[in-house]
């Protein structure tokens, strides 16, 4: 491979090929969920093509099929104007297609240079020619205008640099189509700008880039073409010149308003949960929450809306105590709980429905009965350290009955139930003790439509019984249907607090980083735009 700066790739004559990579009428379903429906995509060679849409719009599913990780049920992938079957990533790589996943394949124990050449090291007879490798690495980073200290250990470099190395590794390995799944989600603004610069350098060098993003500014600034997906369907294909931010946002969330379902609102009482200036980092040490403050009242549902990766997950974990906050105060009925263990918080009246039902919400290998009683309240069912079978049986009946779980025998493993029924067990268990605060994180994820209605009912019931329900959801309609107020997080900060009746567009604007025009509970720090 030649290495001149801004080279044109010799592979195929860009003028001759109309569609370097794309989709023709692709459909893909997972059980009852239709992730892609008749999706069409045309990515022209030498362009940057953005794919935008809400969470669950089917973007990642589409990207996986373009890289051969998954195959369509109907329709087909197009490569170089040809309908082909990409049966595996290997087949995609042969077609010079590369994918940068959110989970980077960077090995922390190795240096960046070692990471770059790993698997295709220059040299002969097993000896690596480090000089040649270094030279090639420098040429690569220079050609796209980034500065990388190749000798640095990967463990000590930022995720932004690691991501650049991952992209350059694809180029090093000969890819000229680069698919990036939300590459900027994990980056700070400056880092994101640098990445966008890198992507446009790659385009200028003749490569083709597809990227998924929720950040409309960056999409409009860099993309040559934009495809909007909604509910698994292609909505439109645009060019940045044709549309502004608001217009694009409208395409993404759709302008259809909710059908007027009968929604009962809560009856907010006194403040129960008070969070002040909560900050926290994720497992990699990246700041995910930055001074979040809010209040939740008894008898209300406070919805928390955010695009994935903006701190929702971490906030839920900080509230229940699985994740430590780096600073800030948390109090329940005026009592500080920020330093308490999960056990103590639950005893004090917190309950938690985890977004990760299979690992955190349930012990799938244990029986339904065991799952129904697993909590610090276990003590109530025991005498002198021994479980009282009658009390246990009564509690199990109460939990499973409360949530109307359909099951065979309470001794069946939890894994034997459907997703919706599993979630009912969780909700039954978490609400049986009449908690002061119910933290519900993505409670309807992976649940079918009928099941969703029932879970909503359980949430409302908890609210009516006096709990402050903090509902984290990626489904805007769900939040609007249930919430009395909706707090929007953006980049780990409170972007605004809206009324539960707000329109999708209003919420969507805040989620995508606009400042709020609606009433705030408290002043919001200036947002980066």
């Amino acid at each position, binding site marked *: 491979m030649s290495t001149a700066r801004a080279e044109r790739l010799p592979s195929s004559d860009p003028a001759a090929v109309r569609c370097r990579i794309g989709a023709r009428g692709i459909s893909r379903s997972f059980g009852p969920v239709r992730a892609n429906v008749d999706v069409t995509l045309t990515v022209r060679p030498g362009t940057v093509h953005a794919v935008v849409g809400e969470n669950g719009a089917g973007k990642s599913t589409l990207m996986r099929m373009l890289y051969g990780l998954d195959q369509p049920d109907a329709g087909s992938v197009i490569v170089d104007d040809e309908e082909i079957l990409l049966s595996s990533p290997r087949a995609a790589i042969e077609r010079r297609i590369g994918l940068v996943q959110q989970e980077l394949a960077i090995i922390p124990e190795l240096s960046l240079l070692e990471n770059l050449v790993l698997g295709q090291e220059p040299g002969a007879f097993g000896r690596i020619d480090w000089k040649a490798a270094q030279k090639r690495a420098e040429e690569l980073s220079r050609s796209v205008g980034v500065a990388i200290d190749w000798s640095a250990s990967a463990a000590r470099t930022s995720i932004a640099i690691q991501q650049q190395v991952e992209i350059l590794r694809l180029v090093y390995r000969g890819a000229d189509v680069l698919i990036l799944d939300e590459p900027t989600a994990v980056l700070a603004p400056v880092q994101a700008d640098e990445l966008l610069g890198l992507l446009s350098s790659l385009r200028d060098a003749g490569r083709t880039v597809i990227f998924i993003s929720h950040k409309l500014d960056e999409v409009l600034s860099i993309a040559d073409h934009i495809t909007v997906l909604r509910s698994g369907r292609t909505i439109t294909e645009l060019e940045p010149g044709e549309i502004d931010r608001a217009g694009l946002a409208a395409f993404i969330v759709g302008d259809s308003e909710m059908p007027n379902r009968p929604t009962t609102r809560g009856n907010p009482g006194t403040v129960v949960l008070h969070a002040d200036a909560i900050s926290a*980092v994720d497992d990699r040490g990246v700041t995910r929450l930055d001074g979040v403050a809010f209040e939740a009242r008894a008898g209300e549902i406070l919805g928390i809306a955010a695009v994935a990766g903006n701190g929702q997950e971490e906030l839920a974990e900080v509230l229940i105590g699985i*994740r430590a906050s780096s600073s800030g105060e948390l109090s329940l009925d005026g009592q500080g709980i920020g330093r308490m263990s999960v056990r103590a918080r639950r005893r004090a009246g917190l309950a938690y429905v985890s977004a990760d039902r299979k690992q955190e919400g349930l012990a799938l290998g244990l029986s339904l009965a065991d799952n129904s009683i697993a909590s610090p309240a276990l003590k109530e069912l025991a005498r002198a350290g021994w479980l009282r079978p009658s009390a246990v049986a009564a509690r199990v009946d109460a939990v499973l009955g409360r949530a109307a779980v359909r099951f065979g025998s309470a001794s069946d493993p939890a894994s034997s139930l459907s997703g919706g029924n599993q979630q009912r067990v969780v909700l039954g268990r978490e609400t049986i003790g009449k908690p002061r605060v119910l933290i519900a994180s993505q409670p309807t994820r992976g649940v079918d439509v009928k099941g969703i209605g029932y879970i909503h009912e359980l949430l409302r019931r908890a609210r009516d019984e006096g709990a402050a329900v903090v509902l984290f959801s990626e489904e805007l309609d769900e939040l609007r249907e249930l919430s009395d107020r909706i707090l929007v997080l953006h980049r780990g900060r409170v972007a605004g607090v809206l009324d539960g009746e707000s329109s999708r567009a209003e919420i969507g604007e805040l989620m995508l980083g606009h400042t709020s025009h609606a009433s705030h509970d408290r002043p919001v720090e200036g947002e980066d735009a």
Partner: protein
Amino acid sequence: MIDLLLASAITLSVPLVLAALGGAIHRRSGTVNIGLEAHMILGALIGAVVSGATGNWAAGALAGLVAGALSGLLMNLVITRLKGNEIIVGLGYNIVMFGVIGYVLRAVFGVSGTLQVDGLQRMPKLVIPGVADVPILGALISGKDPLFWLCVVLVPVLAWLLRSTTWGVRLRATGASEPASASLGLRTLAIRDGAGIVAGALAALGGVALSLGTVGLFNENMTAGRGYVALAAFYFGRSKPLPTALACLLFGFFDALQIRLQTVGGFNADIISTLPYIAVVVVLAFTGIRQHYRGARALS
């Protein structure tokens, strides 16, 4: 006196260094090798038998190496291909290997425990003229067997191999993150099997150093837990060749000191034998606690 102590410390650490370097390589590929003891005892037996049959120590050492490589592969296949837990497989493998060797000694050679091999050629002691009489230095490097010199060469060579060859880089990558390495197209299972072969071969050479070294016979208890000391050494040396070898020297020194004190009287040998293991617990506790306070996600 100090000369004698140093000379004996070095002699005692040669088997440790070989086994520990093998274990370190295996560890870098992602597997904790509990079976070093088994590979060592096999190497010791095969080395002794073949040296006796051929009258040539080098043939014995080579045969021991090959047997160890096969043994290392066999054990590793259960771990990589049958997904057996490395700890249990290693413990079980030791029991099987000592069982087989004890059985064969009695059933085939008709001896219990100790095998005197007729015509066994011991490894030569390489006396370096001129250096031999220099104090300290003479004790350090003169009068050593070839496997000592192999250790001296092996430490920098392994370090270089790990750093500068495709084999080494891919091995480290596999050990650090197997899924990521596999996603880059590395044949991680084969890489780990290769490391298992190296571990078996080197540990077996360590066994050869025991049976063809000073004593010149085979005894079924002659490894006396050295495989586990080697394990302690590569944990202590963080699986890097030089620190691992230095840890072995330290442990070899403990051993020499212990023998020395036994003859003089005073401190007890058994207590000194626990030092390597205590060292490992301390190191693990230290690194574990440090890592714990770095993590953000706390388990209640």
